[in-house]
């Protein structure tokens, strides 16, 4: 009897490892940026062409940076949740509009001039927000995806929870779900709000 226990034990260990491995989403790559200061940037604001936004503007507040684009199908899925959340006035949400024109496979962005791309970005992003609702305090335009690279964006939507000192404390990869909002983002945001 005893001689069967060792192989059985090894087999169970293997089963546990496989079960953990198979139940994890390989697309959720832990971000090295959690616990690090949010990368700095200076980008034009969607609603006001002559204004620029930088993360330093949000010092002293706990806020969300939500990466979105009108061509992003999963963004549409999470959007009603963001709109409802913004109505409750939970946290300020800043939208990072990511490669609005270049990310859309249907458009050949190389043929557009910089001005035309900016105009098209504004038009498409603005139309999408007026159609689906605007949960954002403001949205900024990352037309070439450079800021996205600094934030390690590899799939839209992604959301960063940033504390009062400007440190990234949590990253949601993929759409925010009611569960991730209730169980992860909100409790952590409440805790961060008490920090000085």
């Amino acid at each position, binding site marked *: 009897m005893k001689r069967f226990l060792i192989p059985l034990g090894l087999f169970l260990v293997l089963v546990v490892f496989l079960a953990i491995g198979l139940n994890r989403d390989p697309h959720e*790559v832990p*971000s*090295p940026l959690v616990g690090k200061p949010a990368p700095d940037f200076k980008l034009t604001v969607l609603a006001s062409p002559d204004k620029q936004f930088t993360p330093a503007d949000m010092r002293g507040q706990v806020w969300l940076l939500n990466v979105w684009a009108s061509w992003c199908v999963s963004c549409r899925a999470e959007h009603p949740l963001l709109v409802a959340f913004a109505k409750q006035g939970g946290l300020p949400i800043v939208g990072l509009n990511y490669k609005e024109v*270049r990310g859309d*496979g249907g458009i050949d962005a190389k043929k557009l001039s910089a001005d035309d791309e900016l105009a098209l970005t504004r038009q498409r992003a603005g139309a999408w927000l007026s159609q689906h609702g605007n949960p954002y305090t403001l949205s900024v335009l990352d037309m*070439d995806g450079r800021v*996205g690279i600094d*934030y*390690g964006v590899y*799939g839209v939507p992604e959301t960063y929870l940033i504390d009062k000192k400007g440190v990234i404390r949590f990253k949601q990869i993929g759409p925010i779900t009611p569960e991730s909002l209730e169980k992860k983002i909100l409790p952590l945001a409440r805790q961060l709000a008490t920090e000085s």
Partner: protein
Amino acid sequence: MIRSALIALASALTLATAAPLEAAEATPMADNPVVEARLIAISEELRCLVCQNESLAASRAELADDLRREVRKLIHDGKTDAEIRDYLVARYGDFVLYRPPVKPTTWLLWFGPFVILAGAVVGLIAYLRRRASRLAPATLSDEQKAAAQALLGTPPAPPKDNA
């Protein structure tokens, strides 16, 4: 008549062979072969995060395009290969590296297989030793030998050639 047809055919052939050359010229990629060679060498060691089983060099994902452009820019800025790798690891984590670095969290990954191998070798040696001591050398008494030969029929004879 035939002559003009031949000329038309020849010119058509010239055009047909000329067209791919022009298409190759249109891509602005290989402006500096040294930079491109380094780009390929670096990006073959990096994983594309969108299609995770492809290298950054092979992937056609749009993010891979952006990252290759970024790596190309860093090469132009005079960054070393190690600095470029660090740049990407700082943003995307060790996951972008096809060769994970050796550090405490990856010890199990790097050395685990050798630990299992060593364990298996130790187990095998122990098992063989135990078995050797348990099995007494097989010897037959004279009686047993006679019984065995009787069962086999003929007493053992020197082998003969089958001529």
